[in-house]
């Protein structure tokens, strides 16, 4: 029936709209921004053309002569200058003669223009020559032009004879807004800092995943499995606390434990050790805490998944094995672990993605420090684009870094969809009248 389909479309529309607007569109925009050199300096809307000292430096390598000329002021006999000369209250003949004979002329240096002024019929004094020449001083330096055309016409009127290619070069180096570029990606590929961050990320994901999200979670699940119900639920409750606690409080608790006025310092002080910041005093400690902080959160999800999977193992298998005299270790080895293969795979896949993208805890705990020791990829993207010490936020580079995460995430999840036989998940609906 047609109505079911219409109803379906209507009911799914809000989800589709929200996901497209606030999920897909930002991802697409990230891809777009990653192809630009957008920073705080270039702004995020369009820019202007400005021949600033630093753009002249950039120009020097391509066109040294023109760059040198642009750095110097030029003298143009134009209307504005003539009006100003008339307003100086000098002999009226000076302005009239300049207007009649010299309008439109351009002099490359002050000496040239002053020689011309001295040769005028009225013969102005040296002081007057200086005054007059100053009215025609036209520099392109530090003037803003809203468009290319304005820039070019200004250059033309100042007598710069440039070929179209040279003009384009000038426009390119003097543009203050952002431009399209693929530099972000080559920078990522070649920078040693990025290699370090990549190494950190792999280390972080591997350590937390193996030690806690899978290893410790499995241990916890097995231990509580064999425990009487009350202590089992108490321990599960304790290990769920980190997950339900807001991240800011949770990290604050660790800081209280590790800071120089914190618990460990006070405790060690009783044994005569001077207080220090155990969290940030060296890279190894910082790593230890980063792994612990994230691991304690990660352990809970694995624990729950594994516990519920273990509950699903038929009890008869345990009884039968005991009749045969199996020890507890043998039960774990031959009954529990083989049946944990799918849950372990699921948790590994799921948590790899979560860990790759997570940076809240590291941001709050060490902020990537000490030095760059605990800076991981997601945190580095955040720092680059939204919060860095230099103050110049590199949106383009940050977006490119984020895009790398997106690509890895999509590839991994497509792989997982295959592994977990996606087909069974999207079987046809029950009723489709």
């Amino acid at each position: 029936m047609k109505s079911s389909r219409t109803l379906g479309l209507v009911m799914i529309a809000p989800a589709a709209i929200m996901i497209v607007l606030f999920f897909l569109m930002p991802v697409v925009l990230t891809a777009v921004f990653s192809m630009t050199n957008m920073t705080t300096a270039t702004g995020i809307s369009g820019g202007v053309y400005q021949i600033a000292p630093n753009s002249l430096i950039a120009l020097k390598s391509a066109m040294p002569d023109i760059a040198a000329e642009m750095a110097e002021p030029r003298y143009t006999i134009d209307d504005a200058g003539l009006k100003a000369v008339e307003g100086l209250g000098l002999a009226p003949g000076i302005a009239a003669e300049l207007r009649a004979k010299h309008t439109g002329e351009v002099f490359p240096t002050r000496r040239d223009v002053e020689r011309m002024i001295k040769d005028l019929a009225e013969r102005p004094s040296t002081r007057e020559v200086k005054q007059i020449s100053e009215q025609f001083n036209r520099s392109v330096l530090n003037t803003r032009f809203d468009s290319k055309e304005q820039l070019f016409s200004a250059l033309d009127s100042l007598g710069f004879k440039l070929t179209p290619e040279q003009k384009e070069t000038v426009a390119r180096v003097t543009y203050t807004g952002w431009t399209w570029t693929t530099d972000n990606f080559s920078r990522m590929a070649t920078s040693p800092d990025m290699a370090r961050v990549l190494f950190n990320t792999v280390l972080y994901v591997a350590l937390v995943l193996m030690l806690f999200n899978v290893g410790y979670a499995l241990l916890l699940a097995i231990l509580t499995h064999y425990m009487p119900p009350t202590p089992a639920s108490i321990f599960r409750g304790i290990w769920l606390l980190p997950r339900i606690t807001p991240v800011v409080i949770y990290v604050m608790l660790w800081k209280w434990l590790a800071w120089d006025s914190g618990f460990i310092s006070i405790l060690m002080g009783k044994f005569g050790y001077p207080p220090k910041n155990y969290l940030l005093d060296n890279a190894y400690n910082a790593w230890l805490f980063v792994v612990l902080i994230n691991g304690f959160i990660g352990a809970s999800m694995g624990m729950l998944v594994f516990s519920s999977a273990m509950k699903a193992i038929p009890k008869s298998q345990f009884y039968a094995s005991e009749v045969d005299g199996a020890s507890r270790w043998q039960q774990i080895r031959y009954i529990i672990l083989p049946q944990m293969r799918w849950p372990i795979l699921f948790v590994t896949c799921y948590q790899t993605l979560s860990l790759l993208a997570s940076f809240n805890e590291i941001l709050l705990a060490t902020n990537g420090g000490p030095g760059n020791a605990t800076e991981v990829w997601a945190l580095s993207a955040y720092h680059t684009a939204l919060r860095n010490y230099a103050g110049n936020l590199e949106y383009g580079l940050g977006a490119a870094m984020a895009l790398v995460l997106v690509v890895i995430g999509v590839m991994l999840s497509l792989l997982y969809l295959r592994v977990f036989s996606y087909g069974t998940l999207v079987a046809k609906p029950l009723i489709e009248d």
Partner: protein
Amino acid sequence: MAERSQPSANYRNWPVITALTIVSLPLLLMYLYLFLDTVTVKQADALLPSGLTINHWRFLWQTTEGKANIWQVTVNTLLFAACTTSLVLIVSSMAGYVLSRLNVPARGFFLAGVMVLHAFPSVTLIIAIFIVLQMIGLYNSLLGVILVKAAIDLPLGIWLMKGFYDTVPWEIEMAGVVDGASRFRVWRSLVLPQVKPGIMALGLFSFLSGWGEFILPQVLAPGNQVQVLSVYLAGFLADDNNYDFNMFKAVGVFYLVPVLIAYALFNKYLMNIYGGGSKG
């Protein structure tokens, strides 16, 4: 919680319990001292408190210079978490039903897409949304953060609701349709009550996740007027000049207690999500 799966006596429980207690000690200590430190006085180098005080809770009745008012911040947080939750619940309970029961074009694609979206790192969304909000000048508003947060939680919500709808026997709907009700009415009055545990689970999950959310409000709405508790607390943490760890902890307890209460009341629903419900 399992009943003891083996009655054999060749092992004792207490060594295991002791070992686990030692491993859990950091967590126990942290949470114990969190509550203890907010109501007691302690010498700088002492491990045990020396007296009781309510001074650390003074943030409740006086506002620190340059900081937002705690009640305003709490209202913002509540508003943020509640709006996000309702949005996620309404939108995903509709979309989940469609994906579970109705035949819409590109259904499989949508499902796979939702699964893949779930894997997207939120840092991507933050950077792009930050730039867009700056461009159109809508930076620093609570509504923007609510929409973004809800969108991020949606993929999980939709998958979860689909999973719950899949378990509802379809005879219920058949009966409704045969009696002449529209499909919408069948969903509204027959199917929706059947997935109440799922709605509770998802609702609690998104409330907790909204209540604790830090990075989105921090980047997209850091202003005093729209600040939420996590940003407020992080501001304390960054302020090295006059930090008062005990007051900071008191704010932390103030922030944490609603979470613990909600969790204690509804944890059996939440387990549906954490223990396998999210497998879809």
